[in-house]
């Protein structure tokens, strides 16, 4: 059976191709087509990866929390929600890391330092270690249900950090600049093609996230299914001990 050898379906294959094309276009748009910034020069191009990365991380962690809440409130306690939560959190941690690395490279070139302990950077670092802890909880062992219950509680607590991180630049004075486009009462502070490239980055990274998420979830489902099929087999074997 081909379906057992891959986690792809025609739909996700199409999504994968579309994501690849979108990312290739982002590469050209970000590195060649878009202009340098008056102050930053070429450094501004880091933004096209930095901002979409943290956006994907927010999206992933929010999804983790939503799936966890559904898992806890749903009487059937379907494990598919737990798998989506776990898959999203893994991807989210990866993208926070990407955002932190690209951000500190940009900081070195623009601010003159890799890292400062202002409210935005501190809270982002905090977000990162919290979700590393979340992934550690998922690896504690025990049954699937134990894993799901423990991690769901933690996900619901951890997601509260996202507004803290995002609005830290508005609540306090930070070295990190405020949002340039997500600020409701300010006009967009990016020139035309830069804005387009940034939007393109957001779209293509979101596609990448969805594609990764579906595959990771299916992989986890397969792992669980292997264990479940193993259970049927194991029950049969166990019964033969009794001579039946």
């Amino acid at each position, binding site marked *: 059976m081909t379906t057992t050898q891959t986690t792809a379906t025609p739909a996700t294959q199409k999504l994968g191709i579309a994501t690849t094309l979108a990312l290739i276009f982002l590469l050209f748009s970000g590195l060649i087509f*878009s*202009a*340098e*910034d*008056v*102050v*930053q*020069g070429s*450094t*501004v191009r880091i*933004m096209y990866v930095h901002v979409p990365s943290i956006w994907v991380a927010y999206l992933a962690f929010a999804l983790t929390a939503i799936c966890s809440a559904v898992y806890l409130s749903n009487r059937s306690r379907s494990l598919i929600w737990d798998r989506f939560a776990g898959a999203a959190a893994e991807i989210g941690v990866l993208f926070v890391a990407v955002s932190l690395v690209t951000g500190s490279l940009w900081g*070195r*070139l*623009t*601010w*003159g*330092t890799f890292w*400062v302990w*202002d*409210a935005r950077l501190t809270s982002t670092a905090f977000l990162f270690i919290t979700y590393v802890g979340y992934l550690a909880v998922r690896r504690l062992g025990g049954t699937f249900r134990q894993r799901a219950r423990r991690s769901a509680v933690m996900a619901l607590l951890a997601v*509260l950090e996202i507004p*803290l991180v995002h609005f830290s630049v508005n*609540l*306090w*004075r*930070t*070295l990190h*600049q*405020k*949002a*340039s486009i997500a*600020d409701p009462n300010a006009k967009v*502070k*990016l*020139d*035309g*093609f*830069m804005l387009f490239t940034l939007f393109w980055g957001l779209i293509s990274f979101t596609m990448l996230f969805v594609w990764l998420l579906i595959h990771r979830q299916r992989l986890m489902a397969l792992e669980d299914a292997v264990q479940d099929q193993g259970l049927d087999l194991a029950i049969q074997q166990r019964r033969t001990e009794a001579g039946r």
Partner: protein
Amino acid sequence: MDLTPRPIADAESRAQRQRRRWVPIVIVALALAAGGVVVTQFLTSAIDYYCNVDEVGVRDGCVGQRRIRVQGIVLENSLQQADGVTEFMMSFNNKTLQVRYQGDPGGVFQECIPVVAHGRVVDGIFDSDRIEVKHTNQYVEKNKSRFDEATKETAACSQSPE
């Protein structure tokens, strides 16, 4: 010894069980709200990364002999660099402060740009040992501004700080 099964406390009604579940949730919600108030109302001066130039010696946490971080815009034509010492005037909200810095500031340090300087006020001069450039959230294409290079020179310093 009497080993009669111990009577069990009456099982709770469904409503009581529901209510007991809600109590901690309400406490969490209240505590979080209180946390929001503490963090946004009382801790701002502690969490803020810098003082503005006009607040030096005025605002809580920006006074005294302690180390502070000051933000302001590097005044046009005030930048002097000699023997590894950088001196410039930093201004914010019509107040200016003279800054003396050992070494070459990194990043995109230049005139007409907001910076954050770490150090102490000594005899009215800000003695700094670290300077970070505070980039604004404005991004301007270079190619486009090349057409009006002349206006940029005068306009850049007037760009509104955050």
